[in-house]
């Protein structure tokens, strides 16, 4: 009845190791090269490039990098978390409220409690998304306002404080770039890398890539999605602590939450995570966060009009993402 196919079907040659590496890590390498180039430009721009400059870069990026991870893990699972900025502001206000006049040890305990708290809150948010069947954009956007509102209830206005020694511990002193960088690397290596290699981490990628296939393969889809939100809450809480340490106070302002949120999405996109989910990693977004922090600094030092600088920033993001897309297209055509 059907046409018999006489020829033997053979498996095509596997893609080479080099091609596989290009495909899986090419984007991250690209962003790393871009970052290196920008650091070089900054080095040539600034007369005495040293600890002060580097500290400004690492401490200034710590918050955005953590937030990019918070956004990235949810995007990888096929969702989006529009409440990451608000979660960060909430963690910032909550910790600043409690840390005022506290000892370093107490500050550490408060920081831990804050992170656990945001993880739980974010997990509940994820549970609401999966159970209610409402789109994640709607749920997380609504909760964005709720979280900012709670932050306002806690602090009422800019205020609170922290222990200066705790601050130094987290973001380093006047010209010490190391602590913030170490914290970032530690979080990446101790939280993300083990998670990514675990079955739970693979499940996160799986539900982001193809939810139906993941279900058929035996993954509890709802659990995997909630896990991503919990991890997102951990990263967002850490971003809030970083903010408290670097500002020395709490700022319950919606504009901060909004700016942080948009920054996190930009870093995720620039970092090569597919918004459709399932493809990419968190190293790209972290590197992209550094790039995003450097762009305005470089433009302003180069004498660009501050108003034009914002515009250029946007164009650079679009340009980079489009370039990446074009390269991907060319690869597929071959």
């Amino acid at each position: 009845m059907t046409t018999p196919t006489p020829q033997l079907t053979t498996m095509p040659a596997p893609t080479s190791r080099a091609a596989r590496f290009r495909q899986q890590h090419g984007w991250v390498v690209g962003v790393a090269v871009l970052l290196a180039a920008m650091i070089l430009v900054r080095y040539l721009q600034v007369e005495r490039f040293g600890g002060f400059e580097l500290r400004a870069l690492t401490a200034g990026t710590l918050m955005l990098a953590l937030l990019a991870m918070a956004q990235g893990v949810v995007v990888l699972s096929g969702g989006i978390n529009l409440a990451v900025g608000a979660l960060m502001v909430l963690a910032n206000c909550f910790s600043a409220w409690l840390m005022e006049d506290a000892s370093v040890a107490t500050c550490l305990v408060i920081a831990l409690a804050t992170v656990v708290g945001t993880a739980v809150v974010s997990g509940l948010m994820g549970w609401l998304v999966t159970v209610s069947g409402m789109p994640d954009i709607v749920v997380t956007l609504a909760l964005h306002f709720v979280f900012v509102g709670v932050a306002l209830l806690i602090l009422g206005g800019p205020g609170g404080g922290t222990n200066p020694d705790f601050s130094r511990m987290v973001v380093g002193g006047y010209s010490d770039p190391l602590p913030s960088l170490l914290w970032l690397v530690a979080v990446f290596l101790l939280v993300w890398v083990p998670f990514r290699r675990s079955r739970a981490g693979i499940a996160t990628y799986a539900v982001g890539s193809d939810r139906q296939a993941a279900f058929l393969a035996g993954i509890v889809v709802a659990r995997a999605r909630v896990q991503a939100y919990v991890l997102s809450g951990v990263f967002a809480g850490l971003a809030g602590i970083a903010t408290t340490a670097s500002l020395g106070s709490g700022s319950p302002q919606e504009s901060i939450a909004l700016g942080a949120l948009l920054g996190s999405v930009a870093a995720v996109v620039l970092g090569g995570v597919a918004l459709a989910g399932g493809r990419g990693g968190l190293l790209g977004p972290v590197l992209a966060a550094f790039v995003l922090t450097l762009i305005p600094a470089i433009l302003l030092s180069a004498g660009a009009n501050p108003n034009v600088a914002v515009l250029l920033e946007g164009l650079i993001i679009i340009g980079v993402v489009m370039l990446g897309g074009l390269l991907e297209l060319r690869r597929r055509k071959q």
Partner: protein
Amino acid sequence: MSTDALLAARGVAKAYGSVVALRSADLTVGAGEAHALLGANGAGKSTFVKALTGVIRRDRGTITMAGEPVELRSPAEGYERGIAAVFQDPALIPDLTVRHNLRLTGTDPGAVRQELAGLGIEGIEIDERVADIPLPFLRMLDLARALVHRPRLLVLDEITAALPADLAEKVFTAMARQTRTGGSVLFISHRLEEVIEHCDMCTVFRDGHDVARFAPQEGREARIVQSMLGDRVEAEVAAERSRRNVADGVTPRLEVEGLSAGDLLRDVSLTVRPGEVVGLVALEGQGQDALFETLAGDRRPRAGSIRVEGRPLTARHPAAAIRRGIALVPADRTLALLPKRSIRENIALPSRARPARWGPISRRREDRSVNRAVERLSIDTRAAAQARRLSGGNQQKLTIGRWLAEGFRTLLLFDPTRGIDIGTKRQIYDLVREIADSGAAVLMYTSELREIELVCDRALVLHRGEIVAELPADAGEEALLNAAHGLHRDEVTTG
């Protein structure tokens, strides 16, 4: 009989809202038995398999394995109970590597490699991304993964639909091994010859009930088809159709001259006249994809010309081809439909999208033409809310029939009956003939040679990117097949 039954399902039922997919079905699979589950599209096969394997929860009914009740909440739980399934949709995640996919289900990669070697499949690289592996091999990987769990019951849902003959043979070998060692197989396929050759028993579903159970070797195709269709069965008459002699003077609707496209397609010339169904015969991968894509404006030719109703067509985009009245129905129905929109909207879509028409759409006019089309197609509209809820056959009727609503004059059908049951196939044949009789020109690629005689007026044979033969529709399957392999007609008789 029932004492050595491995799987016994009694009165299994499932409804989706008001749509009853499975009314009350019994199924018994003996130990060491290869059992086929048959039925027309929409008879409830897929729903039964899903209920059995824990993809969905059944509303009523009992399922027992070797006497013990089975209540699966997810396909993964099936492994522990001795049920492993290969589903119609791949259960492999495209963006993950093979290794990660196996890790996800807790399957040992070494064991999978061994199973693959046992199946005679080599060359699947474990660190390759699943998206980079061709579909037939993913099916084999799915199968190997199921086999690793040493299931007592192996469920194969349409696994051979996407497989070339040599890989399908390997599936049958695995089935034979499974039954030889005392295990059982539940096999679902639209290819009756496979069922007759490789299954010991079969159960036929119709309208959500089990209606027959017999050994397929005894009844052969006729009995199977009869059970599947019930009183709808009718003798297959292809000849009654009067072959119209299309006058030579008529301007061809579609004229292709010296067309080259893609890597393969070379110097193809053909004409299709109004009222004519031209069949295209080719083995897999002979350039038919490129030909259809080029005609539909989805791919630019390297050389040659396409003329529609005498005027040259230089389509840079499918919209340009559609404006000239050319419509493509792809083999993958999901590509052509808006799965989450209603049947009405899907029918109205091409006419709405016609770039020539501006301004608001007349609801009344649209309703009229849509109603006509729905009536004509005899589509079950119980699931009208969303096109994706239709069965595969009804979806395909929708993709073809909607062009009726707006009177498209040139129709390109790419394997329109792939994966569709016999009953719906006939309706599609009628539909295609009707479209042609109303004056449209149809070019149809088919992978089922029988359809040439049933539907077409003449056949063109494509081999390695070139048209190598033109044969009358009643040339016979053997002649067509020989031509498709690039052999001459004379060689048929000697061989």
